[in-house]
């Protein structure tokens, strides 16, 4: 629904504002300055200094309101500097000046209100300190809204109000993020120590605060990371046909609403605090469920705290066709408790389920477990077996590659089918996005050094939705830049989430290719590096730093026998529809491609012919994107870093050169 617009008049100037926007935004937008001592653009308004008071008239009735927290809801006339307003501002300014005569921001604001003398309000409480705390509340709000710690607050009633930590002691929970000092307008809060001795702490702080402010002000209208964490994209992925369902056959499901982030938020999440995985992180994407009663396994009947679920947890479960949120939380708990990776467990189980439904295996193999899609209870039983080292669980626990090879070796079913649907590359199970319709992402997954995990590149939207990297060269460029960029902040112990799970309000000003990189956020990371080390960083330098490591990692992969063209080749399920059912579920899209890209007439083709034609096309496309990406990375056509590339990067050590291509 479109927000309602309201016309208001400010000092005779007509302005249109959105309903419920704060009056101060309109006033500032009209180019009018208001005196204030408690308003901060990145914090929710306090409305305590009362200096921004304006006189408004609605339907003939006049009143005074504070512009900072007055939501505009109807047409009105506003005077920002009427006689009545001026009179009160003068008195308020005198009050401030009487109490804190030497604080520069007060002197400045008072002067703007036409006051230079506050002696009428001088008292025993007058504080001559030019850096006195003036009770503006910025620090309290920053502690709450920027980093959600709520350690600073006011104590004492009335005139005794003062800033403190709990019980007047230095609180050990303070993580030393220094947000409070940064927003303090008087310098009342001082930072004593920077423990790890950065070269330029202010530079780090300045950019950290930008992130904080974005989290506090933008996240609630963007991804809601603070509220629901990464689970916010469960419903997004479903809507864009990217949520893995039934071992990546499909990208959406009518039951997704049962497990989306709103369900988790309303019925499950109880913890919303920073978990400290990244010191001072204001995003606090980690969520937890408290008091969850387990229904199965060794802790049956216990009430436990579960760390999660996040997006991949839910995706792993929808991939198994399980849309019961209680199951998801229980699966999450036991995977964590057993030390089993949720993604591998979910993707592995989804493969087993499809094989079971296709008759590749039967209850004779599974020890009686009916492992069909959606079989929540059976999945948990199999998971418990895995942990005990018993029964069918032992086999499933060894992963998709093991199962594939075993079942093909044993001559069960169609070997090609088993290879096509076993979603692993280099022995690692796929993480939970459907890459089928995005060529760039197919490569992003399969070419990743450790296997198909998207922490090198997630290019689905850029490629499939935005169509911003249409050519092979464009895709190759993305497959060059993003893996290096992501490797870089991984190397520095920095998290990826504040790079792209919140975006600056004006990121739109960049053209899509640049916007996708979120230049301002990349710059934040560069400044963190510079503030810490004293060395300036730019994109070129960053890529060079990262490429040394990335190529080294690739050579190690070569050493272990994975880092080759064959090792970068994904199962066909990752590239296109394996089964008839799968083709038919997106027949319009696939038929269209046959027609527009290959010039075929699908109406004259059988389903088998169409599938074969599409497969041939997609497999050849994939080969081409690998060619382009290898070339851009300076690797041979077998996917091995060349000696020239190693020399260029300054890592031409004899041991490495021995592994490199010519």
């Amino acid at each position, binding site marked *: 629904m479109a927000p309602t617009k309201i016309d208001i008049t400010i000092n005779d100037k007509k302005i249109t504002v959105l309903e419920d926007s704060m009056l101060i935004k309109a006033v500032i937008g009209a180019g009018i300055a208001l005196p204030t001592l408690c308003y901060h653009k990145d914090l929710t308004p306090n409305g305590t200094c009362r200096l921004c008071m304006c006189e408004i008239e609605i339907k003939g009735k006049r009143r005074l309101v504070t512009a900072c927290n007055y939501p505009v809801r109807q047409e009105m006339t506003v005077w920002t500097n009427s006689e009545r307003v001026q009179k009160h501002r003068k008195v308020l300014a005198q009050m401030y000046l009487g109490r804190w005569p030497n604080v520069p921001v007060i002197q400045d604001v008072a002067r703007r209100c036409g006051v230079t003398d506050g002696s009428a309000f001088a008292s025993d409480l007058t504080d001559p300190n030019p850096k006195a705390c003036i009770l503006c509340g910025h620090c309290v709000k920053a502690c709450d809204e920027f980093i959600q710690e709520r350690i600073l607050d006011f104590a004492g009633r009335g005139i005794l109000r003062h800033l403190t930590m709990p019980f007047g002691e230095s609180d050990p929970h303070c993580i030393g993020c220094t947000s409070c000092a940064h927003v303090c307008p008087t310098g009342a809060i001082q930072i004593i120590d920077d423990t790890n001795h950065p070269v330029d702490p202010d530079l780090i702080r300045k950019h950290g605060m930008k992130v904080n402010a974005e989290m506090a002000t933008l996240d609630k209208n963007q991804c809601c990371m603070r509220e629901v964490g990464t689970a916010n994209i469960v419903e997004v992925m479903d809507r864009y046909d990217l949520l893995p369902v039934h071992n990546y056959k499909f990208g959406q499901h009518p039951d997704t609403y049962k497990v989306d982030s709103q369900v988790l938020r309303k019925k499950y999440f109880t913890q919303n605090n920073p978990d400290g995985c990244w010191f001072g992180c204001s995003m606090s994407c980690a969520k937890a469920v408290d008091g969850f009663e387990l229904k199965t396994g060794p802790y049956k009947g216990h009430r436990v705290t579960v760390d999660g679920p996040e997006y991949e947890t839910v995706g792993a479960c929808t991939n198994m066709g399980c849309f019961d949120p209680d199951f998801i939380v229980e699966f999450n708990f036991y995977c964590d408790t057993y030390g089993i990776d949720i993604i591998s467990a979910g993707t592995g189980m989804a493969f087993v389920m499809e094989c079971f439904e296709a008759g590749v295996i039967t209850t004779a193999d599974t020890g009686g477990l009916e492992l069909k899609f959606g079989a929540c209870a059976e999945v948990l039983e199999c998971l418990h077996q895995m942990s005990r080292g018993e029964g069918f669980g032992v086999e499933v626990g060894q992963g998709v590659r093991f199962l594939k090879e075993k079942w093909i070796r044993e001559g069960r079913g169609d070997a090609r089918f088993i290879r096509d649907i076993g979603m692993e590359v280099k022995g690692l199970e796929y993480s939970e996005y459907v890459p089928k319709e995005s060529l760039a992402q197919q490569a992003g997954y399969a070419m990743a050094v450790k296997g198909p995990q998207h922490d090198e590149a997630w290019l689905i939207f850029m490629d499939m939705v935005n169509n*911003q990297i249409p050519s092979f060269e464009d895709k190759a460029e993305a497959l060059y830049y993003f893996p290096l960029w992501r490797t870089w902040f991984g190397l520095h112990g920095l998290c990826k989430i504040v790079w792209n799970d919140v975006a600056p309000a004006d990121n739109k000003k960049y053209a899509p290719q640049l916007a996708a990189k979120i230049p301002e956020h990349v710059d934040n990371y560069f400044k963190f590096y510079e503030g810490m080390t004293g060395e300036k960083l730019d994109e070129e330098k960053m890529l060079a730093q990262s490429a040394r490591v990335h190529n080294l990692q690739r050579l190690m992969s070569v050493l272990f026998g994975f880092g080759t063209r064959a090792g970068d080749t994904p199962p066909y399920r990752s590239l296109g529809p394996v089964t008839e059912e799968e083709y038919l579920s997106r027949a319009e899209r696939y038929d269209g491609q046959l027609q527009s890209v290959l010039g075929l007439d699908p109406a004259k083709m059988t389903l088998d012919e169409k599938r074969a034609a599409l497969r041939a096309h997609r497999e050849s496309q994939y080969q081409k994107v690998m060619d382009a990406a290898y070339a851009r990375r300076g690797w041979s056509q077998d996917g091995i870093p060349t000696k020239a590339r190693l020399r260029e990067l300054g890592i031409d050590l004899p041991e490495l050169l021995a592994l490199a291509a010519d």
Partner: protein
Amino acid sequence: MIRVNDLHDVPWREGMTVQDVLDHLKYTYALITVSIGGDVIEPEHYADTPVPDGCAMTVFHLAHGG
């Protein structure tokens, strides 16, 4: 006809707004940037910005996965 992201053709009709196009394509993601002929349209104007027939519209989704 409106061309979106040089990928989809959306049938044009009289009075069509940016919001109508987004609804048609089910583009509901939070971090999107809409532009027509290079001009960025702010979210508050989706519902009252008309889309001219034959125009090229880009709907840029900012997302890099988990």
